[in-house]
């Protein structure tokens, strides 16, 4: 991981200044936990047997006797390597907050529980450690439903602790009562209503295993007040009991052999790499396989950074708004190797027309992903890192000159591009400037919509975990809280929220959280006064009837200033680069309102119901030959 982690993006002096912030001080002060890579910490570590190892030894024990549920919970969080948590207090969770008062965990008080959930999610994506959320019962818990669904769709490890009314009150429609386990069941990997404090240690151990292993996902633990306040009075067993839980590790050697025979024979192979490669830390193996077997590689929105986009073999993103060359390559391929990807409809377009000439190999840790949408020829069930390492062993180099020539021709003909023909800056130009200034060495979060797609297209992704975005659920308002979470998990690193005006304002109250904890998050708002992607669809498919997609926005810079955060506004093309530089150099938090062209659409675009090769090229088709931007279109 060391060589590939994005180095601190900002110049040295700025980094030093940033370290002065309160959060960085706190993170240094509380160095009770050994500083090591997340993979080797607590539950995410693996013993030689492949079984997850817990923070503390488990079994029948006296060590909880005399402690309340809240004390046990906080003690166990620390044992599991938790250093940071996000949340908001309330009546039913006050016993736990009372313990937090005395605890060394760095707690981030948010402004809305949805923010806490997305922060924990962004934290998890940036660090690989599970994100921890602590909220109260009823509305506190229901406000975490959207973040839970976001994390569930994108397989992000997260544990939400929610307060609950006393066990004897449950079902009585008590004040701030909600059936939280019932509400969250479809959006969690597992959830628990703790009925007795004696079950709590086992449940917490199980929650860490479930959240972080296999295909990770969110877990919710509902804690009635009388569970957090009553004491354990006897010896109890905290051994996790998960007879129905299966974790796939190494792939089946016969399937791996079959897969590699196919790959080694293939004339036109394509690697299609998804978020699973990031989750399992398999980026080195992805790059190794592509290099060793000489295979061009495309990544999904969540897989950005698993492959170095400066590599000539990179096809950049595929799918609905993916590159023309990635989509053509998939459609022409005779062997498609999917790694930690799930053939989402935004990737495949019309399933009947998807990769018609290809034999399909699918490496995935979740057997239910295999042949769910696309019939797979060779399934390899297991952890991407382990499976790819074995596959690399068997890989043979093939020149594949014709195929690579064809891809090069597509790349030359259809690069990501735009026409700089409007009075206001084009949104793509702003992202290009951000890419130029940061060289991709930062953690980027986004909201959802046009700006998200342009960020995927115009930043040259090189580092795993650098793209933090809501892919599956497509949660607008994700960007700002996710950036806060990423910053908490990566103090001293450059974190930039590339946001749209409509997405941003959905959770903009978290500016107060940024201020309170002095987190040096940067926000670049691509402000086109519209819900851009909705506007694009209404223009293309609804006769230009812009029904409720136009936004009247506040002065975002003044708004930030009112929170005590540096606010800037950029309206002229010639100021874009300068403003981005100023934003990145600013030692504290900073919000920049980039006013940009409204009537700009994202291209290429695969209309729904069409095959990937039937994409509308838009401006990409009209790119003059010399417009191939050196930003990675051709290396």
């Amino acid at each position, binding site marked *: 991981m060391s060589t590939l982690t994005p180095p601190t993006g900002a110049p040295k002096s700025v980094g030093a200044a940033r370290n002065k912030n309160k959060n960085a001080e706190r993170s240094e002060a509380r160095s009770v936990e050994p500083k090591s890579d997340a993979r080797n910490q607590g539950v995410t570590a693996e*013993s030689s*047997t*492949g*079984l*997850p*190892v*817990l923070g503390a*030894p*488990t*079994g*029948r*024990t006296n060590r909880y006797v005399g402690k309340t549920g809240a004390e046990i919970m906080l003690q166990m969080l620390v044992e599991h390597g938790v250093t940071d948590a996000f949340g908001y207090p309330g009546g039913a969770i006050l016993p736990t907050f009372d313990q937090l008062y005395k605890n060394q965990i760095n707690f981030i008080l948010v402004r809305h529980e949805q923010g806490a959930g997305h922060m924990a999610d962004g934290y998890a994506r940036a660090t690989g450690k599970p994100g921890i959320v602590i909220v109260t019962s009823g509305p506190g818990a229901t406000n975490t439903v959207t973040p839970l669904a976001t994390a569930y769709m994108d397989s992000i490890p997260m544990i939400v602790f929610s307060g609950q009314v006393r066990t004897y009150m449950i079902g009585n429609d008590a004040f701030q009562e909600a059936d939280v*386990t*019932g509400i969250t*069941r*479809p959006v969690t*990997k*597992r*959830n628990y*209503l703790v009925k007795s404090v004696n079950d709590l240690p086992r449940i917490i*151990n199980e929650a860490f*295993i*479930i959240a972080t*292993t296999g295909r990770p996902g969110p877990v919710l633990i509902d804690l009635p007040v009388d569970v957090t306040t009553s004491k354990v009075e006897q010896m109890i*067993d905290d*051994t*996790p*009991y*998960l*007879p*129905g*839980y*299966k*974790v*796939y*590790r*190494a792939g*089946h*050697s*016969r*399937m791996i052999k079959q897969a590699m025979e196919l790959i080694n024979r293939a004339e036109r192979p394509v690697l299609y790499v998804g978020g699973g490669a990031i989750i399992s830390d398999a980026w080195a193996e992805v790059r190794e396989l592509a290099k060793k077997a000489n295979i061009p590689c495309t990544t999904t929105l969540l897989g950005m950074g698993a492959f170095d986009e400066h590599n000539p073999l990179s096809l950049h993103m595929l799918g609905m708004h993916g590159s023309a060359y990635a989509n053509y390559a998939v459609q022409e391929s005779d062997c498609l190797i999917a790694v930690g990807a799930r053939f989402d409809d935004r990737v495949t377009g019309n399933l009947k027309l998807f990769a018609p000439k290809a034999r399909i190999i699918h490496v995935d840790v*979740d*057997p*239910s992903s*295999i*042949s*769910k949408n696309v*019939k797979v020829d060779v*399934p390899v*069930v297991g952890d991407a890192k382990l499976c790819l390492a074995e596959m690399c062993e068997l890989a043979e180099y093939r020149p594949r000159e014709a195929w690579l020539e064809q891809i090069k021709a597509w790349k030359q003909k259809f690069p990501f591009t735009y026409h700089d023909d409007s009075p206001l800056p084009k949104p793509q130009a702003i992202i290009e400037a951000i890419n130029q200034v940061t060289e991709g060495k930062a953690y980027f979060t986004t909201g959802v919509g046009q700006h998200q797609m342009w960020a995927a297209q115009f930043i040259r992704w090189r580092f795993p975990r650098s793209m933090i975005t809501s892919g599956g659920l497509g949660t607008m308002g994700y960007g700002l809280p996710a950036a806060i979470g990423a910053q908490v998990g990566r103090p001293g690193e450059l974190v930039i929220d590339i946001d749209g005006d409509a997405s941003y304002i959905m959770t903009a109250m978290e500016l107060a959280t940024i201020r309170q904890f002095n987190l040096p998050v940067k926000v670049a708002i691509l402000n086109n006064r519209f819900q851009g992607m909705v506007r694009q669809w209404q223009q293309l498919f609804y006769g230009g009837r812009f029904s409720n997609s136009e936004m009247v926005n506040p002065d975002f810079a003044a708004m930030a200033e009112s929170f005590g955060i540096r606010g800037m506004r950029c309206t002229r093309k010639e100021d874009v680069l300068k403003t981005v530089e100023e934003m990145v150099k600013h030692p504290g938090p900073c919000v920049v309102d980039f006013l940009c062209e409204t009537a700009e659409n994202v291209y290429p675009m695969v209309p729904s119901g069409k095959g990937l090769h039937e994409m509308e090229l838009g401006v990409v088709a009209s790119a003059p030959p010399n417009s191939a931007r050196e930003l990675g279109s051709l290396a």
Partner: protein
Amino acid sequence: MRHVITALVMNEPGVLAHVANMFSARGFNIDSLVVGRTEDPQLSRMTIVVVADDRTLDQVRKQLAKIVTVVKVRDYRETPFVARDLMLVKLSASPRTRSEIIELAGLFRGHILDVGHNSLTVELSGEEDKLDAFVDLVRPYGIRELARTGMIAMARGGHAMSLAGEDSDGTGSPTVAAPPIAQSSGRPARVAVKRVPTQEELEATPPG
């Protein structure tokens, strides 16, 4: 096509809701779903009848197995199995028709559970077809009330489904009893770890 799936699930609140919700959320059609206790107090057994093609059935199995509280899943596409449905039916019965109904029930190996002045309650178990046939036959007498449990099923021969593992070697040897729940200290987490799935597993459901 109708398929029968059985699942061992953890005996705790919310599991039935989770399974039922998964079916509706993914658009799978349930014909019947029966859940009840097993020999192990920690486990319940579900028998689910679904209408699905082979590919959908694979997805159903995989999605069931993915639920953390579902311990084991199997279907009976390639296994001979016995299946039973239990029915209680209350029929209108005058003194004149009573003996006819009793005779019919006898032919179907049913039992008379209750006799009223103008009614008769019959208990009948068997395969679904047999119950359907009986219902057809007694309809003219007047059905006042009818309740069926839905199908429960079990493989023929020595194949058994239990916590300890499925006896799938086909030898019919008895399966090992489930381990006692009592726990020793210092043991690693008891999580089923699959290292090397076989071709069949990969193509179908992950077995427990």
